[in-house]
């Protein structure tokens, strides 16, 4: 690991709703260098909430606190909205789960990529278009000139997700947060999208936070894994060592996966221990 791009220490996120407060994220700490870091857990474990608080995407009902929340040399908690806007989408960007819902349905996809570039660079529109076309070629889209003028409903899911990636990478960010980028895709297309992501990470000086619930995928794609349960990180482990995970929750998640090569009559069901909430 080289320099540290992101430093997070004791991050807590609280939501207030109708007089009730719920703690969605509790004392989460990690650092991100030039690597692929996975955050896994079940729905509701707080993994997306962590990703969103890095970009300050939470509504005002959320209270985000941390001992440290630093991106490069910027304190993300103290930064003004203007400073955050200069970071969000430019130096740190986010890839969402489903291209069907995240792309603007009435704007041509190429224009949407160019728009992301224009939002952060004062250049003529023509140049932004050139860059968008280059970027489409980078994410392995066969005929960039044709695809540039398509609308989101005219592209397949895998192509849509590569367009999203192009849009997020065109500003040359240092950190990308990918929130379940492949769970809306078929297995055969998933690999393509992952390869594109991997290529970009290794080519550029990038740190990737990969939010997922798919342990098998994370195991082969990422370098390090944070396992979250009920808002806490219960285990932080190198992806290659996942088989030797020590926390019973991680072991339970792994055991619950049906396997192609090791069929079992019944799958072990996760037994939740209330102690994990405080451990």
């Amino acid at each position, binding site marked *: 690991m080289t320099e540290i791009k992101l430093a997070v220490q004791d991050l807590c996120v609280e939501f207030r709703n109708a007089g009730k407060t719920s703690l969605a994220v509790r004392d989460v700490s990690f650092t991100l260098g030039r690597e692929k870091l996975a955050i896994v857990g079940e729905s509701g474990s707080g993994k997306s909430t962590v990703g969103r608080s890095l970009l300050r995407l939470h509504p005002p009902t959320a209270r985000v606190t941390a001992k440290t929340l630093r991106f490069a040399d910027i304190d993300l908690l103290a930064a003004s909205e203007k400073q955050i806007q200069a970071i969000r989408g430019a130096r740190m960007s986010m890839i969402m789960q489903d291209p069907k819902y995240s792309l603007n349905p009435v704007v041509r996809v190429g224009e949407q990529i160019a728009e992301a570039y224009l939002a952060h660079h004062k250049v003529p529109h023509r140049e932004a278009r050139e860059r968008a076309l280059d970027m489409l070629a980078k994410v*392995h889209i066969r005929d960039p000139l044709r695809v540039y003028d398509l609308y989101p409903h005219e592209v397949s899911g895998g192509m849509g997700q590569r367009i999203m990636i192009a849009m997020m990478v065109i500003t040359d960010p240092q950190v990308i947060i990918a929130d379940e980028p492949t769970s809306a895709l078929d297995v*055969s297309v998933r690999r393509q999208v992952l390869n594109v992501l991997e290529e970009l990470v290794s080519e550029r000086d990038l740190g990737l936070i990969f939010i997922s619930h798919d342990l098998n995928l994370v195991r082969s794609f990422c370098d390090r894994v944070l396992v979250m349960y009920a808002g806490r990180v219960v285990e932080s482990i190198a992806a290659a060592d996942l088989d030797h995970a020590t926390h019973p929750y991680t072991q339970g998640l792994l055991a619950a996966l049906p396997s192609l090569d090791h069929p079992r009559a019944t799958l072990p069901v996760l037994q939740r221990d209330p102690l994990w909430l405080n451990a």
Partner: protein
Amino acid sequence: MSMIEIAGLNLSFGTGAALNAVLHDVDLSVGEGEAFGLVGESGSGKTTVLRCLAGQYQHWSGQLRVAGQAVTRNLPLNHYRTVQMVFQDPYASLHPRYTIDAALQEPLRIHGIDGRGQKVSEILRKVGLNDSFRFRYPHQLSGGQRQRVAIARALILRPRVLLLDEPTSALDVSVQAEILNLLADLRRQEGLTYLMVTHDLAVVAHLCDRLAVMQQGRVVETLDSHLLASDGATHAYTRLLVQASRDIQRIPIAV
């Protein structure tokens, strides 16, 4: 005896220049008490096959038989006492303003079956829930509990065939394990026949005896599911799917 018999099933949408054929001569046969998987990527026509069997499309051509009865264009009510379907997303498949009790009683009422209260409690117990769930609404239940209710709703008419359309793909792995176990237990207890659509080969290998692989509206290969693990698949596309789900080897990007 085969429970589900599909021969030369063709289906297309649109006419003239816009004609789009989605199923090409699909042949399948599923034995009584068998669990059969149907895999392939989105758009390959696997859900469409289920929908033809469930009577949601009427303009197909070919031969469909379930439990020896030909599936006709206008299906009689008792077809649905033989065949029931469980959908992918339990958040979308239960009526948000019906209590669980009302949702479960509806099929009984349609079929004029008495003793409904009793039957609702029995079926809830069978899927691992209890009477405390009866008067709740779907939004008060977790995803796994909702899928249990959806399975209960399908089972309450005591069908012999369940059509399962990606029953676990909207669920977390830990909940998926519970639902897969429940489906395996129910099949054993009730002697049910399953036809399950999924894109997850590991799920097929776990639950099904045999599977068919579909690509662009055609069945390209039918095989025993234990052959998946031993590299016994012969068709290139099946092998690609096996490889992709093992996720070890990298598939080169088509340039």
